[in-house]
């Protein structure tokens, strides 16, 4: 991480180097810092996020959806959901952005060695979990069974379809897809259930012994998934959640992202369920 405090508070100039539409409202942006040296040194952990500035729009926290690459290109999977993200979606390759970060704690993958990992993603929650999954697969031997359960609203909203096809073909992990509403259009090459993610979870039998579950999705998802997970035998300290809050600084100053006495930006965004389950309004 960058240790110069002055630079850290300043968004560094970056550009969009590639852009791929994933669904009607979500695109994958490849972004690289202008300064090649800084770009190569931009190292981060899965689960961390950056503060992304879109000039004239503002700054928003966005998860790093990839793992560090040699040339320092990072991938951001962003949904058009408001002011800043709408502006981002009008930008094209070459457009100027600003980047601060990486921020947040990231997933404690070091603790998970030899364990089975169950990833549960709802909708856009796939963004940080994609980074995590890439990491797990890259260091495949260090972990036990790996499974990704991914739920989307409808087939057309499934993000990273091509990648899902590839993942589905892999033998060293399990992929379960589900959509809330089926439609005529079936995603090419994908085997897909219909129903909500918690329901899918109930149907799939998964060893809970020596397993961690990692959840990321919209606010409503957490509560039901956690009930399911606990029901099937997960203990509170083997459930990890990546939370979303409003953030104005990303570094523990603006106070918008407080969850009880924790800050989503500096203590999170990844929390062990044990640590937040007593907190009102955490989920």
């Amino acid at each position, binding site marked *: 991480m960058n240790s110069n405090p002055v630079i850290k508070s300043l968004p560094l100039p970056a550009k969009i180097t590639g852009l791929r539409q994933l669904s009607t409202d979500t695109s994958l942006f490849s972004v690289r810092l202008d300064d090649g040296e800084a770009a190569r040194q931009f190292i981060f952990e899965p689960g961390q996020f950056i503060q992304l500035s879109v000039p*004239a729009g503002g700054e928003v926290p966005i998860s790093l959806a990839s793992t560090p690459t040699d040339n320092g290109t990072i991938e951001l999977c962003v949904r058009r959901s408001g002011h800043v993200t709408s502006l981002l979606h009008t930008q094209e390759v070459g457009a100027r952005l600003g980047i601060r970060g990486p921020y947040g704690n990231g997933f404690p993958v070091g603790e998970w060695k030899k364990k089975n990992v169950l990833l549960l993603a709802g909708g856009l929650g796939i963004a940080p979990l994609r980074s995590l999954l890439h990491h797990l697969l890259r260091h495949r031997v260090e972990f036990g069974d790996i499974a990704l359960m991914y739920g989307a609203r409808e087939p057309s909203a499934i993000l990273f379809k091509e990648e899902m096809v590839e993942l589905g073909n892999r033998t060293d992990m399990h992929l379960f897809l589900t959509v809330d509403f089926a439609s005529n259009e079936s995603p090419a090459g994908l085997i897909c259930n219909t129903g909500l993610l918690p329901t899918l979870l109930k149907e799939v039998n998964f060893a809970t012994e020596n397993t961690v579950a990692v959840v990321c999705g919209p606010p409503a998802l957490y509560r039901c998934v956690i009930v399911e997970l606990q029901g099937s035998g997960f203990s509170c300290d083997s459930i990890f959640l990546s939370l979303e809050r409003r953030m104005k600084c990303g570094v523990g100053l603006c106070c918008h992202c407080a969850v009880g006495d924790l800050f989503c930006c500096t203590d999170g965004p990844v929390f062990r369920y044990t640590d937040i389950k007593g907190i009102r309004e955490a989920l």
Partner: protein
Amino acid sequence: MNRNKSHLHGCKDSNTGTTGSPVKAPSYRPVIAMAGLTACSGCQLTFLNCETELPELTRRFTIYYFPMGVTARATCGPIDIAFVEGAVSTPDDLELLLKIRSTSRFLVAFGTCALWGGVAAMNNNESRKSMVEAVYGKSAGGMKTFNPQPFVNFVKVDFAITGCPPEKSELLATLAAFLKGIFPVFPRYPVCTECRNRENRCLLIEDNDICLGPLIQAGCNARCPTVGIICEGCRGPVAEANVAAELKLLLEKGFTREEIERRMRRFYPEWDYEQRY
């Protein structure tokens, strides 16, 4: 409805999804319209009052329909963004509004009348017909007019700039943001907040005066209390105004319910006096 935010950019169609080539967007010169319904022209005048920026504005935008400032009379569009002031109170108003709505990509309710009803609507609890007769005599009872109403009662509104008159700064911020294809974010707290930040004497607490600051949308930098005059509420209700608590407070200070309501209605006739959130 306060700020009905909409996303200016419709869904990209799927085959343009992958754009590898750096296509430079043609320099965008949005077409704007400025029009007025039942109002005092203050909102349109606010545009003309941007003296320093006017030359730049005429370069950045194509001013397509602006009877107050341009002779061209066309209304057929297409218009990128229409700023329309005033309440809707006659069939002509409604016709113009519908016409502009149907030819404009974005419609901005410009000013308090367009957004909340404004001064013309303060007596909407009385019969329009008898008011007309009171002013123009019995023979005018047939005048085609109805209770002044905000746009949302008739059409979809994409964005709003409140104020009687609106703040220049908010108009300019909206125009600047529109060049980028978005609408700006304005704060959503009450006038009191800005008033306190300016270290004003609180007229409500210190002078026991009937200041509406706690209920009213900020953005004017507390103009009135700063010059020692109570906030008359010209910017309309702030989100989640605690109307019931303010009402109680003012009653305790000795104002009559009648006077409080009369003053509160000046720019917005539809307060829910029970509202706390």
